[in-house]
């Protein structure tokens, strides 16, 4: 047997997954609390001890890890126009697995610089202007950032015509130059920035997050957990040279504080007479809803959908819901032990999935011209996507998971939201996606076959 260990240092749990490469099989998984305060190594040792008890394994040919511990990869970005370079910078950061704390557009002011110093991002992504386009904004922002009190690397990915000048302005800081995220308005160019972000994560952020001792024990890749999940999804959709994938897919990862949504799809229009608006969309897209989560962000769900909707979904009275949500936020360990809490959790989860999926998917608007209907599409049309994946602690342990995640699908009462119309639902019951993303870098065939086997079809 050739065993490989995959580690996920999560914000609350450290999870280990053992895989037999020769047999192409999942051996087992185990987890323990993450111990950021002391030393993340402790949590890992506990998890490994559990795994050893379950499987007898303690020697691994390789150890690969991803991490979202200590706040994950925290980034701040700035661009020029909100819908253009600022959006491109955000899309690039999210796709690299970052937690985007704030996105600025236009010229930074003193208050912004102070705010950035308080946020203390792991990386600042400075963009603005297409190649040959606007220079004033990024030059101004470089001049503002140079004296920002916090210490963080700046990734420069704006108008190439003034990249050298920006670099000079920022020369007393740590600064890296890379290709423009939006070299032309019709061309999103996020991969070079994302490679740089991963590089920086590897080289320095791991140290800052107290993971360096672990890094010595780890033979290969370290990446932010969401980046690993994204890798897994991409592989699952596209397949390898020798094995087919599942085709385009849509995925929801519901957590306690945030909800992540992924789509691996072109999002091209499926209706005739459609005019597309906005930035080009990346094929592999990740969005994060910071205000939507089952525990810490329960009130955010209520704000987003309204008490009426939660009441309708749960059968509870609005007043009762208000009280319970307050309690839930203050006690994030609340378990659905009573019928009422179960009903509320169902409603919160369904509403979270509904909101986050609708924000991720594109929108179609009907406009009537004298010759009849024309469609205006912004974002991705996912209506023809045939696979929906559910992951995240709040979903995979829920008995009603298939009912909950149908709320991520197309809804006749909101026809403008371009979500999948008929998808089968696969659930990541073993919570292995991040591990498979790590594994996929060297063993894509094994990772793909494990995912195909372990993801459980719970379509109703």
């Amino acid at each position, binding site marked *: 047997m050739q065993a490989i260990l995959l580690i996920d240092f999560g914000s609350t749990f450290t999870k280990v997954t053992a895989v037999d490469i020769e047999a192409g099989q999942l051996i087992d998984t185990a987890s323990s609390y993450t111990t950021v305060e002391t030393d993340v190594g402790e949590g890992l040792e506990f998890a490994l001890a559990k795994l050893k008890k379950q499987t007898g394994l303690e020697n691994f040919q390789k150890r690969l890890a991803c991490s979202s511990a200590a706040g994950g990869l925290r980034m701040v970005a700035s661009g020029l126009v909100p819908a253009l370079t600022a959006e491109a910078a955000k899309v690039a950061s999210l796709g690299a697995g970052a937690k985007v704390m704030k996105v600025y557009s236009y010229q930074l002011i003193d208050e912004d610089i102070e705010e950035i110093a308080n946020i203390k991002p792991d990386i600042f992504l400075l963009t*603005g202007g*297409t190649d040959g386009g*606007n220079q004033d904004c990024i030059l101004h922002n470089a001049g503002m950032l140079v004296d920002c009190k916090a210490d963080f690397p700046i990734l420069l990915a704006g108008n190439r015509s003034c990249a050298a000048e920006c670099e000079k302005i920022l020369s007393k800081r740590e600064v890296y130059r890379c290709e423009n995220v939006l070299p032309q308005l019709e061309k999103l160019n996020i991969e070079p920035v994302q490679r740089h972000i991963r590089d920086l994560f590897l080289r320095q952020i791991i140290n800052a997050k107290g993971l360096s001792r672990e890094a010595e024990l780890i033979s290969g890749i370290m990446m932010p957990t969401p980046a690993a999940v994204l890798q897994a999804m991409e592989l699952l959709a596209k397949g390898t040279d020798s094995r087919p994938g599942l085709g385009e897919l849509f995925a929801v990862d519901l957590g306690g504080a945030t909800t992540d949504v992924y789509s691996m799809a072109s999002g091209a229009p499926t209706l005739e007479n459609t005019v597309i*608006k906005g930035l080009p969309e990346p094929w592999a897209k990740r969005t994060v809803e910071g205000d939507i989560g089952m525990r810490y962000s329960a009130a955010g769900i209520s704000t987003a959908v309204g008490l009426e909707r939660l009441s309708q979904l749960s059968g509870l009275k609005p007043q009762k819901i208000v009280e319970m949500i307050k309690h839930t936020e203050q006690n994030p360990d609340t378990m659905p032990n009573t019928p009422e809490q179960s009903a509320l959790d169902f409603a919160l989860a369904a509403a979270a999935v509904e909101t986050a999926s609708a924000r991720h998917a594109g929108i179609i608007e009907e406009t009537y*011209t004298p010759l009849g209907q024309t469609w205006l599409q912004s974002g991705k049309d996912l209506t023809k996507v045939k696979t929906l994946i559910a992951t995240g602690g709040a979903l995979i342990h829920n008995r009603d998971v298939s009912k909950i995640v149908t709320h991520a699908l197309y809804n006749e009462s909101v026809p403008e939201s371009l979500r999948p119309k008929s998808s089968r639902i696969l659930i990541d019951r073993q919570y292995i996606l991040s591990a498979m993303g790590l594994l996929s870098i060297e063993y894509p065939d094994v990772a793909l076959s494990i995912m195909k086997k372990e993801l459980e079809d719970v379509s109703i």
Partner: protein
Amino acid sequence: MEKKKLVIGVIGADVHAVGNKILYHAFTDAGFEVINLGVMVSQEEYIEAAIESAADAIIVSSLYGHGELDCRGFRDRCNEAGLKDILLYVGGNIVVGKQPFEEVEQRFLEMGFSRVYPAGTSPETAIEDLRKDLRIE
């Protein structure tokens, strides 16, 4: 010399796509860098594209007759967005029916457009004017 940049598109709910493609090729062949926003373009989209790309001119087409409504406030928004001196051209079939062109032109000039073209104006006319207005030798 660096190429001058034009943002072009058909404004409003207008879907007439053919003339737009012809203009794109004509301007590109004449040595401009052209950012083509296609049809059904809002004022905001022209302006955002012009800001990000530091364009030298915005060329608005309107074919379906609602041009006057669609173009209202365009110059004000450009000013607001910091595109102070950007050239603003408009052409196509910018109003409904047969109105004296001088009156139409006057109204569009008052709205802040730099040049206004009657129906049937060829792209070459606009190209010549651009060369003059942008002082291209």
